[in-house]
């Protein structure tokens, strides 16, 4: 039985939530656009909102079961909740905030536990401060500490990094990851940023408009989005439309822009559409290869899925350059003004003198073309 089993059906004015997922892994990231029902799910897990129907089980404890009319109040769930705004009590000190969930324990135990938590989160010496006197990162740690102090069975984090400035986010994301691993408490984290979901989660549950459109391990999701909808929400570039020529359990041949491309079929769940079926696929910009002109003609055995085109647009991202290429094939380009986006490291951009040379041959390995089942 999974450690976390969630099934929630809930109708609100203008919005319906109908989700079911489970997770055995340490950290489950609920990922999707704003308004998809992620935070509402978190509220149901904490017992702050009552679903219409469904069942919520954490580590064998039934928190909610509409069928048997079980509803454990939030006070008895022992679930730590880190709010988006942190929701620190502004009239209490840092130590009082962290010790808030321990007020019913003897004074000495409470102080001891508060001290340990402050120490482990690097908040030593800040115990007497008020939340208003802390930096964004310190506030996040106090909010975490307050939730962790009660030794929760489950930790819930609602967009924990969104209250911070962009430059601090990456650093605090890694710090948060370290804290989650370090304390080893199962957690559910809500985010609309895929990089955050990927860095923090072991499993990613993708939400869209009140439904789960995929639940998968991080690595699996990155390479095998279940559908075009998932790929779009993940912010994947070069999502393209082709037609199937032939599909076998290990290869899919498809036609796109007059070219014949070969892709690897999904090793876990082979997809066998009949010929002429429209099919979506994507090519990660960083996996398109530019063919060097100083090394002789490309070898068709080594360079598969060959094509040629010219750069029509480019953007400097500092460590990489994003190039937009229009292929030489006739007909309108696949993505407006261009067909493919290609990302190259800055060093490659400089060595190949791409700034000067705008015409290139490209090759895409069959393993780098990901087919998206419809």
């Amino acid at each position, binding site marked *: 039985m999974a450690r976390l089993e969630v099934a929630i059906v809930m109708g609100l004015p203008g919005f319906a939530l109908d989700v079911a997922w489970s997770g055995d892994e340490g950290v489950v990231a609920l990922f999707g656009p704003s308004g998809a029902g992620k935070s509402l799910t978190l509220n149901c897990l*904490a*017992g*702050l909102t009552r679903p219409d129907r469904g069942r919520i089980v954490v580590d064998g404890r039934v928190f909610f079961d509409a069928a048997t009319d079980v509803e454990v*109040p*939030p*006070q*008895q*769930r*022992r*679930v*730590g*909740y880190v*709010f*988006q*705004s942190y*929701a620190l*009590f*502004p*009239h209490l000190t840092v130590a009082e905030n962290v010790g*808030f*969930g321990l*007020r*019913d324990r003897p004074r000495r135990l409470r102080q001891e536990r508060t001290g340990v938590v402050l120490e482990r989160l690097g908040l030593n010496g800040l115990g007497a401060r008020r939340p208003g006197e802390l930096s964004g990162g310190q506030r996040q740690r106090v909010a975490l500490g*307050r*939730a962790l102090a*009660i030794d929760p069975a489950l930790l819930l984090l609602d967009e924990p990094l969104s209250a911070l400035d962009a430059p601090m986010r990456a650093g605090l994301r890694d710090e948060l990851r370290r804290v989650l691993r370090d304390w080893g408490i199962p957690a559910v984290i809500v985010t609309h940023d895929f990089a955050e979901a990927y860095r923090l989660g072991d499993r990613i549950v993708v939400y869209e408009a009140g439904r789960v459109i995929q639940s998968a391990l991080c690595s699996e999701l990155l390479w095998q989005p279940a559908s075009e909808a998932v790929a779009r929400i993940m912010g994947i570039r070069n999502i393209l439309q082709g037609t199937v020529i032939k599909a076998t359990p290990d290869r899919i041949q498809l036609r796109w822009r007059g070219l014949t491309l070969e892709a690897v079929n999904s090793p876990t769940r082979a997809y066998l559409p009949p010929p002429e079926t429209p099919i979506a696929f994507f090519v990660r910009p960083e996996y398109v290869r530019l063919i060097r002109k100083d090394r002789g003609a490309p070898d068709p055995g080594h360079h598969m899925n060959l094509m040629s085109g010219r750069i029509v647009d480019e953007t400097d991202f500092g460590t990489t350059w994003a190039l937009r290429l229009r292929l030489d094939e006739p007909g309108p380009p696949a993505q407006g003004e261009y067909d493919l986006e290609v990302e190259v490291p800055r060093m490659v951009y400089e060595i190949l003198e791409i700034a000067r040379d705008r015409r290139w041959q490209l090759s895409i390995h069959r393993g780098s073309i990901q087919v998206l089942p419809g």
Partner: protein
Amino acid sequence: MSREYLDALALSVQVALLATLLNAGLGIPLAYLLARRVFRGKTLIDLLVTLPLVLPPTVTGYYLIVLLGRRGWLGAPLYEVTGWTVAFTWYAAVIAATVMALPLLVRTARAAIESVDRDLEKAAYTLGRPEWRTALEVTLPLAGRGILAGLVLAFARALGEFGATLMLAGNIPGRTQTVPLAIYTAVQTGEAAEALFLVATLTALSCVVLVAAGRLGARAA
């Protein structure tokens, strides 16, 4: 200065203090319920509490007589059992002042409670705190400044209450005659010096209350 005007002053302060105390006991829980709960009859209660703010005080006083007078809905059974009626006693002045001041406290305190971030309460719930303790430890302390402002308004309103008091408690010197009633009597009987003394005292008292509240409010922030 005649004795009865000093009595009026003492009675006014006593009535206003007691009315403020009753307001705190009744009005703060009421403001919390109106701000945070959804229940049947909420709109009706809100309406009843607010009505004295817009009705002429004499109309409110009239309703109080219908309710509490010797032949009133509650007053008659009370009189039958105990032989005592609240009408024309100084308690009646307290009741009238309480009812008239209640909407000021409830409205101010309710707005202050509604402005407290609900996530703070939710956080307290997940940390094991039941609702009533959350209200005492989180919501009310954070709404404290607004509640205090509401209590000051209520005290000032109770101090100046005239119409409803006259209806339910009458204007009996030494027993139910508060300062506003005494001022009215003094003016009616041509005792200009006494009227001026009472007017000045009431004005000064109100100023002291407002300044003190301002200081308290600033410290609470």
